[in-house]
């Protein structure tokens, strides 16, 4: 604000006199005694304050681009504010969680549901969303999508939120039209790495063959780690069109780049590399038994086979595994006289020489890589069989990956069956790959298993992981059915002390969380 023009100079003199002190000031000046100086200053101070005028406005920010998406219904907006306010974590970390829902865990669901409805964030909540996205990278893509153009507009003004401008997915509106060849070319040449990855994705989505062309223009000058990242970004939406480029990358000077190119090619069953690998694998494995390769030749090396085995593994077994893993699964039917995956897996191939395990493990990796459901099904075997007796692998992590290649309903059914047969203690990883909300049979299997665990007096805290998962993943419609479980029973004589109350509390929290999720989802439904 401007100082009052009138007497401004005089005020400066008063300040100078005050700084120096009236004692040291000769000749009287504008005010002689301290009292007179204070009197004059008081008049000035009040006059200045009373006569204030506005300052000149600085350059205004560019208006934020309009976000055409609708705002969520009012109640949903309030819910979001509440979730964002509670995001700094549970009050007593790690301790007993009480009966109330854990809001932090519901934020991702709220964001996902809002995204399905195509809402934009209420403007007032954009800063809190950006803060949340800054603190939690797992929330970032969805939080930034919800914040939309308003979020990017704000992020440009606040260095704390710079990350939003770098994010590949958050760059909506930042990328040029993929059909604008000049603009695409310029961004490709001059852009930041993340912008270039985003651009590559956009270009591929528009025209599968244009992406390799773009990559080729600068490939020779890219740094090795960037080449690796670009290759990695091809993983999503990989297609036949990428083959020539990947084939060329098999000759790359970086070993990691070569290995990744080989891996991607082997995921394309019709590729030349897959054909070469099939030829090698078929030479090693057949109805008559297993003969692992005797050497790792130059061709194998070029096709991405790693020569040196990790400590503790024989080299021939190591090579065999890599060949089978990269060979298209379709090649085995003919080799085994027209048998299907389940029958092939059941064959006692070279059981005597101990190759079966090696072979099955490689088939598992191939099934995951090629997203082959029939082979996955065969390798998983029946869910009720003891895990150690499963045909493919006993590892739950690998089984979870195999499950991911199955259709949603089948996945849920398999895991439900597994839980009914083996209980919950090993099911955690498998549950993680099931689609939310859990299908009815799966949900019931989980709840029944929890109830059984309580009835037999198990320690409730050993199920807190599954319980937390259930709060987030059970169908909210199950809440009413679960009400009966929330009453505290007497502690069983051989149960841990306090277990009954803890179980009741956990079930109460489960029910209240499900109710809250149901309310949350209902609030998001447009009026």
């Amino acid at each position: 604000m401007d100082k009052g023009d009138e007497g401004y100079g005089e005020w400066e003199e008063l300040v100078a006199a005050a700084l120096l002190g009236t004692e040291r000031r000769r000749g009287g000046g504008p005010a002689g005694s301290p009292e007179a100086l204070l009197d004059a200053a008081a008049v000035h101070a009040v006059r200045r304050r009373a006569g204030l005028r506005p300052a000149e406005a600085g350059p205004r920010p560019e208006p934020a681009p309009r976000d055409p998406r609708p705002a969520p219904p009012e109640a949903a907006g309030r819910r979001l504010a509440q979730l964002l306010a509670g995001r700094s974590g549970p009050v007593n970390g790690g301790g007993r969680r009480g009966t109330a829902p854990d809001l932090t865990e519901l934020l991702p669901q709220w964001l996902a549901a809002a995204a399905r409805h195509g809402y934009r964030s209420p403007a007032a909540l954009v800063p809190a969303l950006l803060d949340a996205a800054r603190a939690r990278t797992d929330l970032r893509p969805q939080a930034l999508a919800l914040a939309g153009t308003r979020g990017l507009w704000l992020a440009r003004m606040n260095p704390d939120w710079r990350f939003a401008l770098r994010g590949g997915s958050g760059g909506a509106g930042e990328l040029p039209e993929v059909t604008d060849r000049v603009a695409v070319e310029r961004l490709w040449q001059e852009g930041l790495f993340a912008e270039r990855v985003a651009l590559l994705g956009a270009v591929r989505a528009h025209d599968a063959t244009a992406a390799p062309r773009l990559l080729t223009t600068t490939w020779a000058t890219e740094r090795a780690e960037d080449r690796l990242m670009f290759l990695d970004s091809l993983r999503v939406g990989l297609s036949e069109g990428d083959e020539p480029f990947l084939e060329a990358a098999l000759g790359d000077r970086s070993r990691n780049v070569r290995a990744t190119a080989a891996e991607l090619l082997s995921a394309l069953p019709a590729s030349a590399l897959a054909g070469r690998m099939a030829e090698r694998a078929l030479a090693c494995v057949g109805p008559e038994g297993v003969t692992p390769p005797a050497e790792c030749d130059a061709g194998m090396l070029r096709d991405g086979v790693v020569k040196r085995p990790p400590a503790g593994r024989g080299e021939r077994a190591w090579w065999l595994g890599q060949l089978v893993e990269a060979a298209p699964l379709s090649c085995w039917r003919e080799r085994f006289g027209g048998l299907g995956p389940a029958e092939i897996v059941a064959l006692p191939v070279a059981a005597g020489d101990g190759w079966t395990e090696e072979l099955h493990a490689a088939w598992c990796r191939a099934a995951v890589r090629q997203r082959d459901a029939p082979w996955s099904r065969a390798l998983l075997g029946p869910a009720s069989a003891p895990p150690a007796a499963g045909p493919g692998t006993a590892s739950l992590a690998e089984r979870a990956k195999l499950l991911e290649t199955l259709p949603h309903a089948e996945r849920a059914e398999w895991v439900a069956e597994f839980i009914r047969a083996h209980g919950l203690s090993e099911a955690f990883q498998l549950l993680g790959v099931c689609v939310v909300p859990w299908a009815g049979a799966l949900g019931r299997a989980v709840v029944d298993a929890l109830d059984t665990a309580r009835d037999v007096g198990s320690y409730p805290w050993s199920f807190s992981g599954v319980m937390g998962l259930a709060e987030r993943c059970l169908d909210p419609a199950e809440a009413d059915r679960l009400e009966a479980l929330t009453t505290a029973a007497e502690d069983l004589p051989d149960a841990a002390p306090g277990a009954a109350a803890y179980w009741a509390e956990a079930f109460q929290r489960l029910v209240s969380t499900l109710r809250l999720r149901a309310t949350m989802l209902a609030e998001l439904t447009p009026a």
Partner: protein
Amino acid sequence: MTDQGDRWTAEQVLDLAPDDASRKAGGRLGGAGPWLQIGGSASGSVWGLCKGSGSKPYRTVVDLTGPAYKCSCPSRKFPCKHALGLLLLWSAEGVGEPGEAPEWAAQWLADRAAKAARPQGGRAAPVDEEGARKRAERRAARVGAGVTELEQRLADLLRGGLAGQEQAGYAGWEETAARMVDAQAPGLAGRVRELGTIPSCGPGWPARMLEEAALLHLLDRAWLGVAGLPEELAATVRSRVGLPASGEGEALRDRWLVLAQYDAVSPDGRLTTRRIWLRGLAGGRPALVLDFGPPGRPPGLALPVGLVLEAEMRFRPGSAGLRADLGERFAAAAPCAEVPAGVSTGAALEAYGAALRQDPWLESWPVVLGPVVPIPGELGWQLADAEGTCALPVPLTGGGGRSRGGLWQLAALSGGGPVTVFGECGHRGFTPLTAWQPDSTEPVALS
């Protein structure tokens, strides 16, 4: 009485929370899950049983007209998390048709109603006028001695020059402030303490120090001549020095819109001051209600932003007629359906200037500003008139050292376009406290 159909927003409920932990804990209880027997009455109360970890559920009841709370839980916080949870649940979903309160809630509600019906201020003790006069005289004499001493201190300051103050440190001023407390002039003590902090405030401090010293001197002079001042100004001087208001001020009934509410903790952390800004919707009169909380506890009075209360406001004499006490309320608070009209930056400063005539020591004046465009800047933010080239600076720390977070919220609301903003407009600039989005009547309290 309004029925509880006019529900508050979740923000308004959460504004009542005494601290962050309660806000979070209350938020977790805001779903139907842990609640049984929830209900509400047509006269503005809600109740419910909340399952806790014990065998007996907690009995929670809220009188919305207060708001006042009662809960059987052992928490010492008011409102407790159960009351907050209950209010959140009510805010989100309502509590069904109005009905009869269960016995445990009805008793307390009846007691409250009975207390409210009793005539207020009818204290039976006979007034000892002679004694009161003598006490007032003694106090005036002590304040007078303090004022004389302070004048001496200020004269010494100016005689020796401000230049030495940067090295002199704060201790000397702290001692003078303590002397003013002894002299029963807490208002002077506060100003003296402020004065002591100025030399460490960065560039331009000598001018600010001279200004504050001069205004303090003006207050001293006014006190010494208070007998000759017009009554309103004399009341202002007495209240600025820190004497309790003498006599009741005028009472004004209106529908009061809560424009802002925020807390400031004293530097020693021992006292929380809650400032609540209101404005009469019919008369346009601004009012500032203060409430105080002892160490570790929040003030008891909470009025969520955006609510309108039909009530009597009793204005204290002096201080430009801002300070008021909330009197009788005639209905439960309800949300406001309109955005108050804003004025330009020039008009805002004129209003502050006009108020200085009644109270030259006034730091700021409550103003609804708009339409204005927030301009973020690395050196400082501005609020610029939507039309024209004028702007008000936003002080780096105003209104009790509020955070920058609220400013970003304001920027987010505006998106570079015009908004309406309520705040405190003074010689340091404009401190935004509440804003309205262009397309909504719901105020956003800037945190």
